[in-house]
């Protein structure tokens, strides 16, 4: 948009920033935290009691406000110190040079949480850019976890072979799970959203089956738990197991995936075909791009990355998989959909989005242990953020921003029928 040279510097600045997606995300974060605060207020008995008391005496409203701020503040403070940095502890380490592992634990946890999330989100984002809604990332991640766990725990090899082979098995598992909706979409026209939703549940049932009725189950166990991964197939922590910092070599896998995604989308001809198909399917067909092949390939890439995320998650943290592996709506595959949206399907945007959501998730855990406010509040905050990010115009209306022409998210809004 050409800028009016006569406009004052301030108004030009506000216009430019009000068009940036970063501002929308930041405002969505503020709204998310506000909703979270509201949820804390109406569900914490101490706060409610204080407000009830404020009807009886004159000095009480001030007290009630103080109690409210104390409770909400304590929750969010522990969320921050548990996921980013705890300033006093950090200062202590800086001045004395000791307890570094304690000071760095929050960041390490956030990075550990973000690692598989980045990988899965990039997979979902690539599919979005092609106009494909891969809602089955979670199932594909579980499939990758199953395949990877099989290689990691039942084949014994030296590290330099075993670890790559394990990760490769994860990719192949995810690809296999992605191939089914891909082929069905390409050759029968079945809508990928329905197929992937349904296929998620098929894979969850398959996970329980493999963990209860196949040799992958830990011998001598009745529960749904797999054999432990060989040490040669684990993504070990950077700073050794004794440091207590869980951040592991999976981080480099994630970085490699980010670089790959940048190259793939911006530099490779296949990536170009993908983006053209997403931007305008008719133009893509007219220019000779085989739409069916593109659909199948998108699902292979997207599913493969989701599978990689699943095995990185298992191999980097738990070193085994259980029946609860990634199950439920908080599984990384579902968070990945929202993160891809948050990062506008661009690799770097996804990195920042993953870090934000990882910080919220890790902070939620710290908040629960410090103040007793359940960690699921983080899920609620994340959901509210995404609802607002998906509706940028609403945010502009709430905050009365001008420059209504946002880069509206062009997504796979095509309905069941197409």
């Amino acid at each position, binding site marked *: 948009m050409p800028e009016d040279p006569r406009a004052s510097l301030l108004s030009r600045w506000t216009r430019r920033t009000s068009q940036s997606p970063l501002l929308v995300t930041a405002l969505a974060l503020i709204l998310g935290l506000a909703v979270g605060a509201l949820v804390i207020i109406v569900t914490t008995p101490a706060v409610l009691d204080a407000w009830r008391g404020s009807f009886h005496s004159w000095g009480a409203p001030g007290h009630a406000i103080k109690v409210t701020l104390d409770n909400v503040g304590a929750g969010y403070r522990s969320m921050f110190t548990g996921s980013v940095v705890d300033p006093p502890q950090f200062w202590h380490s800086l001045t004395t040079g000791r307890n570094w592992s304690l000071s760095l634990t929050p960041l390490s946890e956030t990075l550990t949480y973000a690692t598989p999330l980045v990988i899965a989100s990039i997979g979902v984002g690539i599919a979005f850019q092609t106009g494909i809604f891969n809602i089955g990332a979670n199932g594909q991640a579980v499939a990758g976890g199953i395949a990877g766990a099989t290689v990691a725990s039942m084949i014994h090899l030296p590290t330099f072979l075993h670890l790559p082979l394990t990760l490769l098995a994860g990719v192949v598992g995810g690809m296999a799970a992605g191939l*089914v909706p891909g082929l069905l979409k390409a050759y029968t026209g*079945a809508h990928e959203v*329905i197929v992937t939703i349904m296929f998620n549940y*098929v894979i969850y049932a398959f996970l329980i089956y493999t963990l209860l009725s196949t040799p992958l189950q830990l011998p001598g166990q009745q529960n749904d738990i797999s054999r432990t991964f060989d040490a040669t197939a684990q993504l070990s922590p950077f700073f050794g197991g004794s440091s207590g910092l869980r951040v592991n070599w999976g981080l480099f896998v994630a970085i490699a995936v980010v670089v790959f995604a940048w190259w793939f989308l911006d530099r490779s001809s296949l990536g170009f075909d993908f983006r053209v198909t997403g931007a305008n399917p008719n133009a893509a067909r007219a220019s000779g791009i085989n739409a069916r092949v593109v659909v199948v390939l998108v699902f292979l890439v997207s599913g493969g990355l989701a599978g990689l995320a699943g095995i990185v998650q298992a191999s980097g943290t738990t070193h085994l998989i259980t029946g609860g592996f990634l199950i439920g709506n908080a599984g990384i595959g579902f968070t990945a*959909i929202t993160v891809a949206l948050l990062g506008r399907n661009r690799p770097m945007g996804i990195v920042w989005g993953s870090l934000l959501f990882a910080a919220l998730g890790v902070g939620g855990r710290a908040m629960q242990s410090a103040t007793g406010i359940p960690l699921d509040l983080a*899920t*609620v905050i994340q959901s509210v953020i995404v609802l607002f990010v998906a*509706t940028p115009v609403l945010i502009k209306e709430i905050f009365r921003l001008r420059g209504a022409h946002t880069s509206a998210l062009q997504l796979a*809004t095509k309905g*069941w029928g197409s």
Partner: protein
Amino acid sequence: MTIAAARTPGPPTVRQHFGRTRVMGLSIGVIGLFIGVVFGLGSRAGSHTSVTWSPVNLSSAVPWHLGTLTVPTRLSCLILGLILVALGAEVVVRRPERGVMARFGVAGIFFLFTLILWTGRTLGPSQVSSINFTAILIGSSGVAMVLVYGSLSGVMCERAGVVNIAIEGQYIGGALVGTVLASTTHSFIIAAIGGAAIGAGLGWILAFLALRYMSDQIIVGVVIVTMMAGLSSYLNLQVLSPYPQYNLGNLAPPLAIPLLSKIPILGPVFFNQSGFFYAMMLLVALVSFGLFKTRWGLRVRAVGEHPKAAASVGINVVRVRYINVVLGGAIAGVGGVAFMAVQGQFQPGYTSGLGYIALAGMIFGRWRPSGAVVASVLFGISVYLAENLQTYQIPVPTEILQMFPFLITIAVVSGLIGRVRPPAADGLPYQRD
């Protein structure tokens, strides 16, 4: 799928249709053969299955006592299998225009029934253990009832052209509000109203974001489910655990209909149910009549098929969609309360994907209330059996039963068996000119 259909000229589509019907007939026949060979010939010659028909609670004892029925497993499975083979042959030969999917649903129910027979067989004619068939039907009817509410909600929304993937979230919201209201007021009517309100509220959020701001309906739906899952888990820890008096786990009492409930076998299944069950049946009739026989229904379907044309004859597209999505949300919310009234105490995550099965039921039922009922019965039995057949120690993994609703829906949407066609404008944003 519309593109694929548009590319093929007229005559081949007709042939395609007949081809599909044949495939359906063949698959019905294959199911029949499977039943005959695996369940029939697969069981030892002298084995028998004992089936009892007594309802679970003996207070509503029937005036006539039905004894235990012991049938030879091999023979009955063979006969039922042959019936299906004949049904399949009939479809292949006659190629009926209507009711093919319903026949397929019958085949599925036969399959589950013979699976029960085969599971409960004992060697020899002596009666060692027996299968309480009525108990299985009553248990399945509870699941099917909840699924019908969800599928109806989907039908309401999608017939108007809005994809409601948030059924699961509306279930969770309804169950949560329902348990609190039922525990504090001891009235399931108030609980149902509360559940309807929360479901309608979630429906309104979906409609508001999707209709006014053109957000992606699928994303909003997924996020609503995630939000409700998180919120319910949060409230469970923060409110329901410290104050158990809000989560007593009331079960809705059965209201026996005087004479009808004494009918053997079917009486306890259909006429000795909670009010939610009767309300569900009423609602199916109401929605079915409303959608296909009234002015309102015609308008809704017009909006879902071709909103521009509907608008050109003066229908307020956005308003119709708002009303339908809010009503649909309310129905799913009541479904959540009904789920709570069957399952008891609220626990986070206990709907475990039932909302998506309801979505599958709506698709399998071809966006029709009656089809949704058939699909819900089929899926309800399979869900119930997957949860409860473990007690019978069958040699097949129950996980396959768990996959059943999802696999069959994938097969249906991809046209491997039968063909479903969603409303043409389903999920598309509508922009007023």
